[in-house]
C-alpha cells in the first residue's frame, strides 16, 4: 500500500516540478479580467461591438478603450457583468433593431433591366447600379439574410427584405453588407419609421415606385420635432421620438410610406384609411 502512495506521489511531484519550470519559461501574461469577461460574453463573435469577436472586445474593454455597453447581443446582462468585473458604473444601452427603409417590392417598383446572374446584392449593384429602377431601393437578393448570424432577416415572396424584430439583436452586420444602405438601425421603442431610402424628387420617384417618399414635408409640418426632411427624404429623429406625434405624422403622409412597425401585420393601407375619415 505504501509503495502505491510513494510511487504515485513521486510521479505527481515530478510532474509538478517540470510543470512549474515550464510555466515560468512559457509564461504568457493574460489579464485575468480579460479571460473572465470573454468567458461570460455570449461568444457569438458577431462583431456588433466593432471588434474581432468577443475575445477582441474583452481585450479592448480591459485595455480601457471600449465602453462596457457595446455588446448588444449580450444585452443588459453583459453590460452589468463587465461593469462588475471592471468596477465601473455603466448604464445598459437601449436595444436597437434593424429597419428595412424600403417598401418597393416587385409588385410596387419597376426594374431597369432583367438581371440574370449571381444571387447577391453587391454583384447586382456593380452591374449598372442594380436591376431596380430606384437607385437606392432594396434589391431583394438576400445578401443581408446570408450575413445575419441570428436568422432575423428573410426575403418576402415579393422580393423585399423583412426584419423579425424579436430575433434581431442589433449587431449591425446587415447594414455593412447592404450595398445600397437600405437598412437603418433604430431603437426598438421607435416603432414608427419612414420606409423609403430614395432622395429623388417626387416626379422621378412616381416614375418607378408607387410608395416612395416625395419629400412633401407634410409629416414635418404636423410633427416638427419627430420628423426631419433632407434632400426630399423624410426620416424619424430617433433621439426626440414621441409616439403620438409620430402616429399623427404617419396618418397625414399622402404617399403612405410611414408605418408603425410594431402594429399587427394588418395591411397598413386600410388601417390608415379608417383613421383618416
Amino acid at each position, binding site marked *: 500500500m505504501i509503495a502505491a502512495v510513494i510511487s504515485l506521489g513521486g510521479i505527481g511531484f515530478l510532474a509538478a516540478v517540470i510543470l512549474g519550470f515550464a510555466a515560468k519559461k512559457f509564461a504568457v501574461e493574460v489579464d485575468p479580467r480579460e479571460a473572465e469577461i470573454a468567458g461570460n460574453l455570449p461568444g457569438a463573435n458577431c462583431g456588433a461591438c466593432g471588434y474581432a469577436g468577443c475575445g477582441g472586445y474583452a481585450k479592448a474593454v480591459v485595455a480601457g478603450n471600449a465602453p462596457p455597453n457595446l455588446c448588444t447581443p449580450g444585452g443588459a446582462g453583459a453590460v452589468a457583468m463587465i461593469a462588475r468585473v471592471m468596477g465601473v458604473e455603466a448604464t445598459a444601452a437601449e436595444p436597437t433593431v434593424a429597419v428595412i427603409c424600403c417598401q418597393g417590392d416587385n409588385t410596387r417598383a419597376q426594374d*431597369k*433591366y432583367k438581371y*440574370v*446572374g*449571381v444571387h*447577391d446584392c*453587391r*454583384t447586382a449593384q*456593380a*452591374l*449598372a*447600379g442594380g436591376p431596380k429602377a430606384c437607385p437606392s431601393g432594396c434589391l431583394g437578393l438576400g445578401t443581408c439574410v*446570408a450575413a445575419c448570424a441570428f436568422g432575423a432577416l428573410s426575403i418576402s415572396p415579393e422580393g423585399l427584405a423583412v426584419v423579425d424584430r424579436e430575433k434581431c439583436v442589433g449587431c449591425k452586420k446587415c447594414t455593412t453588407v447592404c450595398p445600397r444602405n437600405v437598412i437603418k438601425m433604430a431603437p426598438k421603442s421607435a416603432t414608427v419609421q419612414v420606409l423609403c431610402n430614395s432622395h429623388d424628387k417626387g416626379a422621378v420617384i412616381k416614375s418607378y415606385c408607387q410608395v416612395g417618399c416625395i419629400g412633401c414635408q407634410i409629416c414635418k409640418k404636423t410633427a416638427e420635432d419627430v420628423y426631419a426632411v433632407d434632400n426630399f427624404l423624410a426620416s424619424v429623429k430617433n433621439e426626440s421620438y414621441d409616439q403620438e406625434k409620430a402616429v399623427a405624422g404617419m396618418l397625414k403622409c399622402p404617399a403612405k410610406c410611414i408605418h408603425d412597425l410594431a402594429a399587427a401585420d394588418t395591411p397598413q393601407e386600410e388601417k390608415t384609411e379608417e383613421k383618416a375619415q
Partner: protein
Amino acid sequence: MQVQQVKERSKAFVNLFRQHKGMNMELKTFKGGLHPPDNKRWSEKKAIEVCPVAEGDELVIHLSQHIGAPAEACVQKGDKVLKGQVIGTPKGFVSVPIHASTSGEVIAVEPRLDTAGNKTMAVVIKADGKDEWDPNLSGADPDKLMPQELKDRILAAGIVGMGGATFPTHVKLSPPEGKKIDYLILNGVECEPYLTADDRLMQEKPEEVVEGILILKRILGVEKAVIGIEANKPTAIETMQKACEGKGIEVCPLQLKYPQGAEKQLIYAVTGREVPSGGLPMDCGCVVQNVGTAAAVNAAVRRGIPLIERIATVSGSAVAEPKNLLIKIGQPISKLVEFCGGVKGELGKIIQGGPMMGMAAVSMDVPVTRGTSGILLFSEGEVIRAPEGPCVRCGNCVRACPAFIMPTEIAFQMRRGKVDEAEKLNVMDCIECGSCTYICPAQIPLLQFFRQAKSAIRANIAKRKKV
C-alpha cells in the same frame, strides 16, 4: 455540333493559308482557350460606311472614356465648338484630352448615362450639321520629329488603346528607364465573335496601319514589329503582307482560338514569353498595340486629326442589316442601329464590345465611346440562359482557362464569401475573358464571381494603403 464546325473551318483556313504562302511552320497559339463560333460572316464582307451626323443630333461625349483620371470640361453651356476642338483637358499623367466629334453648340455639361449604366460627367453637343473642322489642327512629317514630340502629338490627339481597354497610348509608349523593349506586337487578332472592325480596317486601309506602325517603332526604338492576325482573316493577312513588304514588319498568322487576342496570350503566342503574374508586358520586353490604335496614331501625327471617330461593327441577330460603320464618338446607339435598318424582331440584349468581354448596355440612348469596338443586338430567344445548375466538377473551365487558375474552386470560395481564400487561388490573375462562363455546362455565372472577388480585393488593398 458547333465545335466540330469551327474546327473544320479553322483547318480549312490553315490549309488555304499554308498553300498560299508555302509557309510550313505550324501556326502559333497559347495553351487553354476554346472555339466559340466566330459568327463573323454576318458583317465580314461589308465595307466600312460612314454613319453621318445630321443637324440637330445630340452627341454625348463623356469626360472619362479611358483608364486613368477623367478629363476636366473646359467649355460651358452655350459655347460654340468646332470639330476636333479640345472640350476636356487631361488631369495628371495617366489622362488624355477629350475632343468634340463635330461642330455645334454645347447645350449641357452634366452627368449622363454611360456604357456601364452609371451617371458620369459628360459634354452634350448639339450638331449644327456643318461638320466644320477646327482650323488650327496641323499635321507634320513624322520623320522630322523626335520621339518625344511624336508622343506629345499622340497625347494632344487623345489616342487611347482601341482594343477596348482604352489605356492612354502615350503612357504605354514611355516605358521606365530600366525596361528594354525589343518587340512591338500589333494586335490584329480580333478573336471576339461577331466583330470585324479591325479586319475591315486592315483590308481597306493597310497603308494607314503600316505607317502608324513605323511611327510607333521610331518612338520605341524597337527593331522587331510583328502583326498577329487570326487565321480566319486570310484577305486581311494578304493585304497586310503586301503593305509590309520590305518595311521590317512581320505578319504572324495565329491559330483560330479564343482568347488569342488577349495581351498576355498574344505575347506568349508570338514570342513564347510569359508576362510575369501581376506584371506588365514591358516586364518581358514587349509592347502591344491594337491595329486601330496604329491607324489613329498615323492620322494624329500626319494630319493632326484627334481620336473623334472609329470603326465599329453593328451586328447580331436583332439588327436588320449588320454593317461596319465609321462612327463619331458620342453618337447614341439608337442612331447607329437606325442607320443599319433598325431592330429586327424582339430585342433581348444590347452589348457594347464583343459577346465574350463586352458590357451589356442598359438602354439604346447610351453613347458610343473611344473603346467601343462593336454594338451587338440579340433577340430575346438567343439571350435566355438556362437556370444555374449544381457544379459537377467536370473540369471544362479548368481546361479552358488561359490563366491556368481554377474557376470552379474560386467560385466555390466566393459562394462562402471567403475573399482571402479566393485571393490565394490567384483570382487576381483572371483576365476576365469569359471562357469559363461560356463553356460551363451548368451555366454558372463564374465571371461575375471573379469580378466580385477582384473588386473586393482591390477595396481591401485600398483600405490597407489608407490605414
